């Protein structure tokens, strides 16, 4: 056992994992500080789930090492299981058992579990405490799954697709639960493809694409890499004279697709564009302005959009 405490809660070094000919994780290194909410963001097949499975010690990497609170996840499994709570994306529970029965069962696996009633209440399942797992809605099953990840008072929690399948109200409730976890000093590793969730919760985000970390920064830091701060889209009733918008102060990029025009830039962009259009006698309709977000950063960094799986139903 090392005498000096590790500085990081999770330390993954040069992880590599392939399934047959398919490389799931090419080369992933990341370091999660204690007490941090760390996001892993990426599309389906980017290697998110494999990465967390390697970190949770469920899968054996072909190469590389993972330490959680200084414990080697493959060799110190017994210790690891005491301090690491895991919510798996595709794991279900005993179908015929009720919420209370399942929480009580999992509680017996740990030294100092959270009392069942308290835990069930914290994820908003008190009214369904006597409902069998198979009769719960998808969102309720998800919440129970999160409760079970927390029952042993873990110091590090892995949450895989935390709010997939939850309605907006339940989603916000889950987010407060995660924020309370951070307040109590728990380190959270959050796998997600929901931008809003990552932007709101995460201190830092690793952006995964094709089995690699393509960027690692705070959500705000990632947004900066989108290459622009604002975007304005509008429909032009008549053609916009060439060079009109490109020459404006603060404009970085102009794209036209038929009568639809997209302008990206910074500063008082909307004002500048409107004035220029009016002066040129171009009538603009359906004008929409938006701040750059993680979505845009994702496109800038990987070359493709993330939202193709936003509607994925579990």
């Amino acid at each position, binding site marked *: 056992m090392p005498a000096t405490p*590790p500085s990081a809660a999770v330390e993954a070094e040069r992880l590599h994992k392939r399934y047959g000919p398919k490389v799931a994780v090419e080369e992933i290194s990341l370091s999660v500080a204690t007490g941090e909410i760390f996001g892993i963001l990426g599309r389906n097949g980017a290697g998110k789930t494999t990465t967390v499975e390697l970190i949770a010690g469920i899968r054996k990497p072909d190469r590389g090492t993972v330490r959680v609170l200084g*414990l080697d996840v493959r060799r110190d499994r017994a210790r690891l299981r*005491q*301090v690491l709570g895991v919510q798996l994306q595709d794991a279900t529970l005993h179908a015929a058992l009720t919420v209370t029965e399942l929480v009580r069962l999992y509680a017996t*696996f740990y030294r100092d579990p959270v009392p069942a009633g308290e835990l069930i209440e914290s994820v908003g399942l008190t009214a369904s405490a006597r409902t069998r797992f198979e009769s719960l809605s998808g969102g309720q099953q998800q919440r129970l799954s999160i409760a079970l990840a927390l029952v042993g008072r873990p110091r590090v929690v892995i949450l895989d697709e935390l709010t997939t399948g939850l309605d907006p109200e339940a989603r916000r409730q889950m987010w407060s639960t995660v924020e309370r976890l951070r307040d109590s000093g728990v380190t959270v590793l959050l796998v997600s493809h929901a931008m809003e969730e990552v932007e709101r919760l995460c201190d830092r985000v690793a952006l995964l694409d094709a089995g690699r970390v393509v960027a690692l920064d705070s959500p705000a830091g990632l947004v900066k890499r989108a290459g622009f701060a604002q975007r304005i889209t509008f429909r032009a009733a008549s053609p916009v004279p060439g060079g009109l918008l490109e020459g404006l102060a603060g404009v970085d990029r102009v794209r036209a697709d038929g009568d639809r025009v997209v302008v990206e830039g910074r500063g008082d962009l909307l004002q500048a564009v409107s004035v220029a259009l009016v002066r040129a006698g171009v009538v603009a309709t359906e004008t929409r302005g938006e701040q750059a977000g993680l979505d845009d950063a994702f496109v800038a960094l990987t070359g493709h959009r993330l939202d193709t799986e936003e509607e994925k139903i579990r």
Partner: protein
Amino acid sequence: MTDVTVHRPGPRAFAELLICELKSVARDTAGLIVPIGLPMLILVMNASAAGREPVAHGRTALDVFVLPLVFTMVVATTGIVNMPSFLAYYRRSGILRRLGVTPVSPVMVLVAQAVVGALQIAVGIAAAWILAVLAFGANPPVRAGAAIGVLALTVAAMYAVGLIVAALSPTPNSSVAIGLTVFFLLGATGGMFGGRDSLPEAIATVGQWLPFGAGTEALSAAWMGAPVEAAPLIGLAAAAVCGTVVAALFFRWD
């Protein structure tokens, strides 16, 4: 930070796991039909055909041939078919994966399931026995202790075979198919579809060492008060040991 002491889930966790498994079984009424209903059906189908003439020590053909066969079938269906298919379901649904990230050991999960299976076997055998006594005037084994011992060893052997099936099947679904195939193979070579006398000699000899044939033969001997030979006992014990070793080496959570 690494001053983590290991808390191993103990008897309380095991008891809770066992209770939960029992509740799951009890709430799945369809799952109870095979282990309890099938042996009774086989018994009824064979009881009237078996003569009432005493074969040895006042025991009839029903006692020394049909009941050992029925009891061995109860054990075999539970051990070789039900147990792997239960594990298949647990794997496919991710229940084992989920348990795999808790401090609970896979052995505890397996043992809890084995106990549940043993209880199912006990209920199945008890039901068949009561029916045999009440409806067909069955007699208890001459050497009851030996019969119970043989039955226990058969349970261990059949479970071990089930564990081999579960551990070596490439996918969860294939384990059910493989389990059924193994069950019928063992049954066929062990006299499930008629006496072993009618089998080719080589197959009959092999079948005598395999758990099904060995179990029925040893149980039959104990029932009629004859000495239980070493061969079937060795066969059963060997199956139990092999299965446990294979399962320990190859068990997977998913």
